[in-house]
């Protein structure tokens, strides 16, 4: 049984991923280095960085807020809110892109109005951020909520009786208690945001040097038979993904201790 599992995981997971590293450097480091210097590539790095940075911040703020609301309060519509929070994970990224275009595109519900006031959403950074946030929305909340529930309200109430205001209580009691779960959720959503492909490909317009992200580069250069660039970008993304997993697995035991 152990053997079946190891073989299954090897052929589905381990060998293919290792092969990427192998293929990337099959002609040495020079071509990879060269590909990394390409202006399209550096631009993609920058765009990916910006989009991921903004998205992770939004994810985190939203995630913590909604977690506190859902765990610490009882209000009308709470169950509904809790349920739709998971919705983004079950929706095709292409549908996400389409949905955003229909609302924020040039001919969309709000898009026309926004563009007339000089604010372009679709085919520009704001749209890419929206798409990225959409697909990674519940990740932070789903990590933080169970921990919030587990620590209960007693510590917070104790802090309140000791004279701490709501903000102080949050900063000094709640935040330290959830920090590992929060870190875990943040790393998770960062990994997800970096790699978002489908939704971003629909809303970005794929303008080279402007709205091209790393995952888009992988696709495009592969279709154009520029295998080196495709592998190089993939290599970077895969390395980040693996690094995130390692960070997460290091965070986990601490969280339990």
């Amino acid at each position, binding site marked *: *049984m*152990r053997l079946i*599992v*190891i073989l*299954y*995981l090897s052929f*589905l*997971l*381990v060998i*293919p991923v290792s*092969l*990427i590293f192998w*293929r990337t450097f099959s002609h040495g480091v020079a071509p990879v280095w060269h590909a990394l210097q390409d202006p399209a590539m550096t631009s993609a790095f920058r765009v990916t960085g910006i989009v991921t940075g903004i998205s992770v911040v939004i994810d985190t703020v*939203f995630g913590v807020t909604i977690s*506190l609301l*859902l765990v*610490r*309060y*009882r*209000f009308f519509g709470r169950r509904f*809110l*809790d*349920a739709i929070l*998971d*919705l983004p*994970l*079950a*929706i*095709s*990224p*292409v*549908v996400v892109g*389409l*949905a955003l*275009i229909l*609302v924020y595109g040039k001919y969309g519900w709000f898009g026309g109005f926004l563009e007339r006031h000089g604010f372009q959403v679709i085919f520009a950074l704001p749209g890419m951020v929206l798409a990225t*946030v959409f697909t990674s*929305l519940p990740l932070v909340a*789903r990590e933080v*909520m*169970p921990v919030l*529930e587990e620590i209960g*309200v007693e510590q917070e*109430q104790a802090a309140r009786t000791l004279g701490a205001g709501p903000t102080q209580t949050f900063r000094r009691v709640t935040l330290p208690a959830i920090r590992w779960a929060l870190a875990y959720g943040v790393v*998770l959503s960062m*990994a997800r945001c970096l*790699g*978002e*492909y*489908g939704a971003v490909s*629909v809303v970005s317009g794929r303008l080279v040097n402007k709205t091209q992200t790393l*995952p888009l580069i*992988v696709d495009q250069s592969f279709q154009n038979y520029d295998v080196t660039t495709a592998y190089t970008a*993939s290599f970077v*993304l*895969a390395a980040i993904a*693996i690094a995130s*997993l390692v960070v*997460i697995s290091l965070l*986990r035991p601490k969280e339990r201790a």
Partner: protein
Amino acid sequence: MTRSSAATVAPGRRHRTRWIRPAPGVGRLGRGGALGLGLATLWLSLLVLIPLAAVVLKSFSHGAGNFWSAVTAPDALAALRLTVETSLLVSLVDVVMGTLVAWVLVRDEFVGKRILEVVIDLPFALPTIVAGLVLLALYGPQSPLHVNLAQSRAAVFLALLFVTLPFVVRTVEPVLIELDHDMEEAAASLGASRFVVFRRIVLPNLAPAIAAGTALSFARAISEYGATVLLSGNIPLKTQVASVQIAGQIESDNTAGAAAVATVLLVTALLVMIALTLLQRWARRRG
């Protein structure tokens, strides 16, 4: 709860969050809370609810007849069929292999187990487009194994298998860890063989988690896009999945047609999520 993980809903945790009674001291909304709730709801509406509503409305913008003909157009129908059929098949494999992997990870000890533990989550963390490229490297035209699955339906199957791998594993694992070992010993002392213990004690107790993981697998599979793009070749009527078909419609500016197929996907995902919630409620009641 230990380590349900990575870019998923982590249902092991989720059912816990869902059905708890209000903790003592849990409050009503104060002024700050109400403001937070207002902003969160507004954000959720602008980002998720309104755009999704726009998709559904758009799909019916030219009447139900057009919706129907867009969904039953040969390429749309073929894409939807391929998506659903392959997803079902993938879910089936996930049930068996996911449970098996979880079992080995929890109950077995061997060198390299810790590495497998980490690697399991790779499909969650790896960008989907990279996942496609990765699989293409081993099962594409330049396969070192000399199996070329590129541009075939098998490739779609493989891609979906890859991206859904962790769901069942990660939902079953925590339940298996917390499964009361005494229960198995009690069954053994009552005369049950190892196989009977597994079938009559372990499996029924894992069933809700397996079902939850499978539902997530299925929901993910029907909506997968990135991993299939490079691998499947996107041949209409043959290897094109629903998401790719929608993307094509968007590119050719047929947003109404795209919205129609998207609505079908949305409704399917919604049904799966509702089924999952009901399932968890039912499992909860059993204790």
